[in-house]
């Protein structure tokens, strides 16, 4: 499944967002996910994509920005063939299944 579809699945499942509202250039804030909501969305992204994000907040204004960001992490992960630790964060913690 492509990144956009996987991310959309998270948004539909956890935020009950109508799938027809999900577009790459749509601001996440308009979907009810503000900067605080982003903290939780990133948590779901870590679980879904098995990546660990940097400790510092990441600004991802649109769904497209989130897709690009995740794809970048996944690409880096493929190169290293180990879980990606963005921003030099400590080793990945155990993940729970989503």
């Amino acid at each position, binding site marked *: 499944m492509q990144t956009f579809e996987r991310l959309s699945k998270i948004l539909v499942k956890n935020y009950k967002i109508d799938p027809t509202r999900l577009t790459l250039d749509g601001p996440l804030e308009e979907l*009810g996910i503000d900067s605080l*909501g982003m903290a939780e969305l990133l948590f779901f992204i870590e*679980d879904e994509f098995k990546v660990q994000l940097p400790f510092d907040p990441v600004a991802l204004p649109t769904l497209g920005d989130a897709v690009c960001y995740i794809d970048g992490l996944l690409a880096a992960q493929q190169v290293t063939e180990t879980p990606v630790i963005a921003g030099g964060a400590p080793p990945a913690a*155990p993940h729970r299944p989503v």
Partner: protein
Amino acid sequence: MTGIGIISPLGNSAAEVLGNATAGRSAICRIDEPWCKRLVSPLAACVKFSGDEHFDAPKLRMLDRVSQFAIVAARQALDDARFDFENANRQRVGVFLGTGMGGSQTTDDAYHTLYAEQSDRVKPFTILMGMTNAPAAWIGIEYELTGPNLTYSTACSSSAVSIGEAWMRLRNGDLDVAIAGGAEAPLSFGALKAWEALHTLAREDPFDASKSCKPFSKSRSGMVLGEGATIVVLEDWERAIRRGATIHGELIGYGVVTDASHITRPTVTGQAAAMRAGLQAAGCVPASIDTINAHGTGTQANDAVETAAIKQVFGADAYRIPISATKAIHGHLLGASGALEFALSLLAMQHDILLPTMHLEIAAEDCDLDYVPNCARHNVKFNTVMSNSFAFGGTNAVLVARSAQSAAVRCAEGN
């Protein structure tokens, strides 16, 4: 008091709650969760409530059940009060909320993640959902209320304290309106086990689980935990009259006195002093109280001590004054109990009903007052009610209110 909002085991509207309380329908039952087999008595009084009927999904993700209850009860209360926000100075509207355990379900979930699942994946909203002042904060945010937003945590008297403290601010002229009450959602496995470990919870009635809480009874064995929220709207009498509000009753006294002797054991002296303080603040003599809503938990310690304290304060009148203990059917909502019982007392007074103390077949020898056993009394005109809330930690709070009709007469006479 011009608005009442209730989310409770007895129902999710004032009318439904009064109807069930009058009929003595118990909301206490066996709970059915996978972890219940690890409880000695898997009993609780649960609210029938689904957050997704009241909140959109992104917001709901930030709300512990306790905040959901509080917000929905506040909406009900403000609707009931027909509150006009357009013309309100929002800095003169305060929120005063009592809760004993705050977002305990969220905290319990986080501990489960850490210790049971051995995972470090604690959810990002754990703090903001679990913090004790979240319910009050959300009410303030929802209505953009910029006056004081205060949370009181004095265990089982929390919401009597919050209402009393709000009343004092109003009486001092610091505020135009107060949104006050309590919320509690303590029915997580961790919280239930912790209460069980304290040996305060009731044994299950072998014949009918719904009758397990028996205040003032010879066979009482403890309390049953419940959940919910009750919010009331308080405003100055003249202001309420001016805007043509429906007045449920007038809060006229609040007494708060602390035992300062033992962390759990109640004292006759402390409870009696709180009742006297409430009477003094109300300018009432003991004989003028028509009915008492007792703290009446169904524990051995409270019910005997409360009975003795009522006798100490009211003397011979103690035997005349009808006493209701509604925890028998809605359970003990901890920090939300005081507000629920106060609201219920005023609703009953509005409808000339003395609420029953259910499951009281044989009263204990040291509980020998009129507890309105097992059956409501109808068409009883009364004008003054006292509502008692006592607590672990020793903060005893008492609210005294009178009916709107009697308040109107007294106001016309200049009292």
